[in-house]
Structures are given as C-alpha cells and as structure tokens.
C-alpha cells in the first residue's frame, strides 16, 4: 500500500510542476529575457495564474475530476518535456552571492524548510483552511465543479489559489493543498533575493528574504490552506516584473504583468489593488517617457481581465453581485444582506477590540493573540525602514508597501499586512545593510526568535503560530485520525455530523464547522441571507424582542381599495420589519388570496414572510431605515375594508410609517390618520413554529456549540422546540428536529 505521505507530496508537486511548466512555456513564447533564477520563479508564479484559470474552466463545465486533472497535468508536463523546459536554461545566471551570505541564507532556509514542510504535510486543521478554504475545495471536487452555492458567502470570494489547491486536493487531499501553499512560501524569499540581486542589493536581499521567511505569521499561514502568502508571492512577482519592465522596456512583459495583476484579484479581493497599481505604474512611466500608452494599457487590461472577470461573472450569475459579499448596496441581492456586510466590515476593522491603537504594534510584533499572528520582534525596528527613503529604490519599495498595506485599514489582522511585508522587509534590510555586521545579527536574531520553541517563551499562548515539528504526523506514522482528534475540536464535531446526519441533509448552526471534514450541507447563521433568516426564526422562538409582541392598527372609513402602500419616512439605525400584515372589514380579516401581489423595497425577496401567517417569520429591510422604503400590496381587485393591522417586533422604535391606499383608479390617499399602538402578550408555541419553518426549508438538524445563544434553551426546552438530542462531543450538541405532531 502506498503511504499517504506519497499521495500528499505527489498532489502538491504535480500541481506546482504543472504550474511551473505552463509559466515557462508562456515566458518562452513571449521571448522575455530573464535571468535563469528568474525564469524558475516567475515561471512558477505566472504558470500558477494560468493553471488556476484552467481549473476554473474545468469547474465551470463540471469536469473537476481526479482523472481529468491527471490528464491535464500529464499533458502539460509532457509538453514541457518536449519543449525542453526541464533542460538546462540558456539564460545567464545572476551575479553570485558572497560566501557568508550564501551559507547564512542556506542554513536558515533549510532549517525553516524542514519546519514548514513538516507542518504543511501534517493533517490540516487551520481555522479557515479546514472550514471554508478546503471546505469549498472538497465540495467542488465532490460535485465536479461549481454548483449554485448561495448559502455560504465564502463561496463568493475569489478563490484563485484554491483552484490550485483543488488540483492538488484531488490526489493528496487536505495536506496536499497546504503543501502547495508551502511551495509559494518557500518561493517568496527566493523572489525577494532574486529581485535584490538583479539590482545589486544582494546583502539586503538575503536579509529581506530571511525577514520574510521566518516571520511567525508567514510560517503558520504559509503552511496551511490559507492563501495569504501565495497571494503575497504573486503581488511581489508583479512588482519585480514591473521593475524589470521599467529598466528594460521589454514590451512582452506587459502580458505577464497583466496576468499577475488579474491573478492577484483572483487570489484575494484585497490584492485586487494590484490592478490599479500596475496600471498606474505603466501609465505613469509611459507618460513621463512620452511613449504611446494606449496599446500597452489595453494589452495589460485584457490580460488582467482574463484572470479577474471569470470570478466576477461567476458571482453575478450565481449570487447576483459580481463583487459579493461586498458592495451589496450597489448590487442588491437576497444572498448577502447589507446589514450583515456592514457588521462584518466593522468587525474586521476592529478585530479583537484593541483597547487602544497603541496595542496594535505590540500585538503585531510580539504577542500575536488579538490580531491572529505575529511578525516577530525584529519588526519593532520597522520604522527604521523610512531611512530607505533617501534612495530612489527605497522610495519605490516603501511606496509599493504602503499601497499594498491599504487594505489593512479595513482588516487589522496580522496576515493582512503580508502583501506589503516583502517591500517593507527589503527597505528595512537595505538600511541595515549599510552598517557592517548589523544585518547578519538581525537575521540570526529573527530566525532564532521566530523558531516555535523560542516563540512560545514570549508570545501569547493564544497567538496563532506554529507550535511543533510534527514529523511523525506529517509522514502519517502517527495516524491522521488520532492527530486530528487530539488537536482539532472542529474535526471531532465535523465527524459527529458525518456519523449522525444522513447524506444529503442540511445542518443549521450559529457557529462555524470544519466543513472540509464533512460532506453534509452546513448552513451557518451569519454566512448568507437565507441562513440569516433561519437564525431569525430561532431567535423569534427564543427572545421576546424578536417576536411580534406589538401591533399597529390603522383604522379608516370603510372604502373599496385595491392598492395599499406602507411608506417609511425616517432615517436611523433601526431596521424596519413586518411580521404579519392583516386587513379587516369590521372585525373580520380579509382572507388571503392567491391573486394578491406583494412587493417591498428594500429586500423584495422576503415580502412573502409578512403574509405567511407565521409569527416567527418577518419581512425585514436588512439595512438601516431611510426615507422611501416601502411595502405594497395589490389585492387584484377592489375589496371593502376599514382597518389594517401590522404585527411587528418592538426593535424598530425609529420607524415612522404612513399608510396609503387607492382603488382601481385615482390617486394614493393617506389612510394612517388614526393609528393605534398596542402590546400583545407573547404567543406560546413559537419555539415549535420556528422549527417548523426550518423543516419547511429542508433543515432537519441543529448543531449547537456550548456558547450558542440558544444552547441552554434547546437543552431545557427540547420538548417545546420539538427536537431530540442525537449526539454530543465536548459540549457541542447535535439535535434532530422532530416531525410535527399531526
């Protein structure tokens, strides 16, 4: 039997080799003149962009299968072999490194390569990697491509690097994906070094490469199925190619520049800044040199679009917003609510709620708990990099670093600084390199202080960091199941779901799940509009404030009306909602008819929830109130009535409503002259009604974490909810929703 480790290494190396060959073929086709070392590295990065596109296309036509990937990869490698990609290069090599630098760099590089490879090959259990990065990859492979996923906003993010993971995952599963990331992690320092050597900054290049390589957040991120370090490698490659173009003006370079800029966007939205960066760079340089700019810019734009547009098109088709899960105000859709987007962006902006902005530098460089990871204490010296402003190259590096650090203003997690880190590292190393003996000391200190066994002595115990050198787990001498059970609670919960929930069933939860380890459909409350509604139903059963305990009754002279329109006229922070809208003639409610038509703005898609006779569902604006929001009813013909009653929740004090009506003809007339407000007692049976709503939407299972807001109530009132406990692992409970009594 072939050891699992072989599959992992095959999956990763097959993917990286396929990418490398594609990139080399492209560079040769374009006849771009590079140094030998640059051919290897840019070959890998440019090829990754092409391979990602190939996998995207295969996913789009439902051909994401192991056999197809093998055939495609084998064809690429065979073509590369035939074209001499694996043979000796005719390109010249870069000037050699000095002996001290060479030995110092090699020693540190190899030590960290062993550390990182063992972690990358160990069973994958990173929070985001095992939840959505690989959760989606596993799903694409199961479903042989993209499916219409509208209940997971992470499926709407660009997943350029994940396309490479998918290629590797097909052969070596989770760890193969992490090893692909490891490949980029090890390529990035070499890219920095190569760039520096080309421009005569070899010593600074060695220093910057080590600063980048050993940074603890690079270690933990770049050896798991995250994508930040890979994206950083693409961003820096783009900068290197732009610098080469600046020096040599090889027009063919515009093609890989465009492809990489587009691939940055495909890799991560925040790295999409690479497109304006590169476009601005090209335009500025051509303009200053009084050279034609339109054609190069068009070539650049076309190449970038090839990489970026497929992702926007996929989102537009599936979720109605090319930039989902962001910009929902400009592309309204039912899949990601505007209020959620605002909360999400706000949460990312403040992360672990720092008491003061002065906490951020210490957490970034030493503690690493609040911002999820640390750069290492040496980066406390980062302000010294400003001394590099004295040299043009230093200015360009710092400007690029500052530009790619812009997304950090919106997400202060440490890893969101990674795209700017190679630039800052090189600028800092340029400063140190000017003082004899300083740089080797800084490099050695950084390498030692960032080693896991040293790091744990001073960083927070909750810092996101590598903790061990798991060689036995990497080689699967220690069983994968045992390792994951010992170290990953998320895995244990995912396996509970797999064991107790039948295939094809949906599980609703308020928290996250390691979806990469379960094949069941997980609906997490915050991850989509549909799921938000499921959470709302549960909350209505749980909290009186989320249930309709308030009524607005509009009484008017009896008259025939066909159209009624409720208009909201205030601004504020509350959201507007209607649990039930009822119309009366005297004491008798007008029976609802299939001829009726309802519409609302915003959130027209949930208008039905105000007319379903359920007290746990409600139409909701899902954004803060503003004048002009409305809810309109067309009765299909005139009906006699004299009052309208709205059953609402109390959480909307700021809403100011006016009710208008009109018959078949005529103008809108204000009906809301006499409005009476009243409280009504909380109706019993809401818990069971909430579960019925979940069942009606195909959800029959609930996963409840120990800190779940509904956890205690589920436990104490299982009979009222109509749920039965199926299993429990470490405090997380799995319930089945019982069928309603006839």
């Amino acid at each position, binding site marked *: 039997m072939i050891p699992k480790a072989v599959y992992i290494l095959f999956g990763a190396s097959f993917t990286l080799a396929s990418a490398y060959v594609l990139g080399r073929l492209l560079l040769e086709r374009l006849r771009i003149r590079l140094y030998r070392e640059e051919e290897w590295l840019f070959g890998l990065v440019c090829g990754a962009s092409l391979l990602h596109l190939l996998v995207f296309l295969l996913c789009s036509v439902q051909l994401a299968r192991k056999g197809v990937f093998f055939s495609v990869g084998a064809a690429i490698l065979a073509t590369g072999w035939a074209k001499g990609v694996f043979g000796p290069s005719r390109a010249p090599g870069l000037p050699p490194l000095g002996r001290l630098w060479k030995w110092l760099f090699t020693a540190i590089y190899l030590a960290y390569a062993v550390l990182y490879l063992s972690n990358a090959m160990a069973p994958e259990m990173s929070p985001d990697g095992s939840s959505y990065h690989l959760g989606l990859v596993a799903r694409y492979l199961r479903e042989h491509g993209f499916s219409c996923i509208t209940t997971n906003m992470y499926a709407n993010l660009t997943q350029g690097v994940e396309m490479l993971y998918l290629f590797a995952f097909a052969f070596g599963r989770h760890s193969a994906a992490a090893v692909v990331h490891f490949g980029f992690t090890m390529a990035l320092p070499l890219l920095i070094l190569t760039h520096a050597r080309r421009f005569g900054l070899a010593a600074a290049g060695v220093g910057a490469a080590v600063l980048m390589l050993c940074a603890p957040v690079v270690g933990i991120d770049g050896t798991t199925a995250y994508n930040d370090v890979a994206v950083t490698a693409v961003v820096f490659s783009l900068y290197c190619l732009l610098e080469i173009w600046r020096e040599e003006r090889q027009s063919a370079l515009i093609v890989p520049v465009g492809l990489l800029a587009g691939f940055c966007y495909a890799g991560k939205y925040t790295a999409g800044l690479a497109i304006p960066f590169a476009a601005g760079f090209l335009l500025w340089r051509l303009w200053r040199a009084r050279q034609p700019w339109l054609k190069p810019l068009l070539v650049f734009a076309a190449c970038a679009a090839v990489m970026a547009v497929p992702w926007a098109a996929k989102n537009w088709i599936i979720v109605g917003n090319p930039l989902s899960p962001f910009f929902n105000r400009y592309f*309204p859709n039912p899949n990601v609510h505007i209020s959620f987007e605002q909360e999400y962006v706000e949460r990312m902006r403040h992360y672990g709620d720092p008491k003061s902005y002065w906490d951020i530098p210490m957490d970034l460089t030493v503690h690493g708990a609040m911002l999820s990871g640390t750069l290492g204490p040496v980066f406390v010296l980062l302000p010294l990099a400003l001394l590099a402003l004295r040299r043009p190259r230093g200015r360009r590096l710092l400007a690029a670093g500052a530009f790619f650090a812009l997304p950090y203003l919106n997400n202060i997690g440490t890893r969101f600084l990674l795209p700017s880190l190679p630039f800052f590292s090189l600028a800092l190393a340029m400063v140190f390199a000017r003082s004899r003996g300083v740089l080797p000391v800084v490099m050695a200190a950084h390498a030692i202080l960032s080693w896991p066994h040293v790091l744990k002595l001073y960083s927070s115990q909750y810092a996101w960091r590598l903790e061990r050198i798991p060689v036995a787990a990497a080689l699967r001498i220690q069983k994968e199941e045992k390792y994951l059970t010992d170290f990953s609670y998320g895995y244990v919960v995912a396996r509970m779901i797999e064991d107790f929930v039948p295939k094809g069933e949906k599980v609703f939860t308020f928290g996250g799940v390691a979806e990469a380890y379960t094949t069941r459909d997980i609906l997490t409350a915050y991850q989509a509009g549909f799921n938000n509604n499921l959470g709302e139903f549960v909350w209505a059963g749980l909290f009186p404030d989320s249930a309709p305990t308030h009524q607005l009754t509009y009484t008017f002279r009896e008259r025939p009306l066909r159209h009624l329109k409720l208009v909201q006229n205030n601004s504020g922070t509350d959201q507007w909602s209607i649990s039930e809208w009822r119309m009366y003639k005297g004491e008798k409610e007008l029976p*609802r*008819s*299939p*001829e*009726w*038509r*309802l*519409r*609302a*703005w915003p959130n*027209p898609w949930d*208008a*039905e929830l105000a*007319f*379903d*006779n*359920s*007290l746990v569902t409600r139409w909701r604006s899902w954004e803060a109130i503003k004048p002009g929001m409305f809810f309109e009813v*067309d009765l299909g013909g005139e009906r006699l009535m004299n009052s309208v009653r709205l059953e609402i929740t109390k959480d909307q004090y700021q809403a100011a409503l006016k009710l208008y009506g009109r018959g078949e003809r005529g103008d809108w007339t204000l009906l809301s002259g006499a409005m009476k407000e009243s409280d009504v007692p909380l*109706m*019993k*049976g*809401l*818990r*069971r*009604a909430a579960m*019925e709503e979940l069942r009606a939407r195909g959800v029959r299972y609930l996963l409840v974490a120990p800190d779940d807001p509904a956890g205690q109530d589920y*436990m*104490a*009132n*299982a*009979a*009222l909810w109509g749920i*039965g*406990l199926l*299993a*429990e692992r470490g*405090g997380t409970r799995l319930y089945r929703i019982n069928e309603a009594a006839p």
Partner: protein
Amino acid sequence: MFRLLIIAALLCLGACAPEPEWYAPPMQRATLRGVEPRPVGSVVSMDSPLADAYIVSGVLKGDPLSRWRWTSQRPELRFYLTETKGLKFFMDFVLAEATFQFTGPVTVRFSIGGKPLGSAHYGKPGEQHYEVEVPGNLLTASEPVKVAAEVDKVYVSPQDGAKLGFLLVRAGFEQ
C-alpha cells in the same frame, strides 16, 4: 460631442434602479393555538436523554446517558406537575465510598421553592432512597416546581477544586 453623449448615456444608466418584483402570498401556516406542551414531566432519571431539561443547577455534566451524575453541594431540579395533591417527592442517589471517606456522615436538606421540605442523615455510603409526602400548598401545576437538595459536607477535589456532593440517579414526584 461623441464623448459627451457617452458620458450622458452612462449617467442615465447610473440613474436606473430596478423595480422590485411582485410576489404572491405564500402557503399559509397554521394559526398558533397559544398552548404548548410542558418541557419537562414529574420524574427524571439521569440516564434520560432529556435529563438536562430538568436540571436548574448543581448537577455536573456526565457521560451521555450515564446512569448517574455527580452533584455539587446544592443540586436543584425542576418538574412540571399535572396535579398537586397526594404527591410524594423521592430521590434515589448514591453516597460514593471514595468521597464518604473524606466527608464522613452527611445530612441532606430538601426544599421546594426555597421552603423546607425535610432532611435526612446518612451514616454510611452506598445507594440511598429518600421519600417524603409533600403538602399541597408547596406545589403548583401552573409553573415549574423547583426542588433543591443541599448536602452539609462535600468532597473538594485537590486537582481542580470541584465540590462533589453525591451521585444523583433519579428524582421526582409520584402518588
């Protein structure tokens, strides 16, 4: 002129807002009857999957479906009763030898809604059964009835400082 036209066309496009679609009323849900079943009954065994629903406080988590569960010094349970007259409260529990070595004989005081119900002294470890008739005025059928059993001496774990009272097996009200 051509550029101006393009800009004007783009501005017009930008001013367009989609009209929201019309929807028909959906299938109507059954009207709630305003009643719901009681969440708990009058007797609980610790091996019941619904045991947690009866626990108000003071019962530690155990293995799922285990026959007994450790209590702290003052476990409190809740029950729903359909009638209040002629009922006896009972509790089956075990005084573990391992803890009895440290505590020696113990007294357990029972109360309902904070009002004393009775007490018992136990001079040796092992399985115990407590039973007492309950005056009707201590009980209600409209709200949950909360019963507490407070043990005067507990074993304190040297490892984690956990206070252990006794092993609860079954409790409740019966005729």
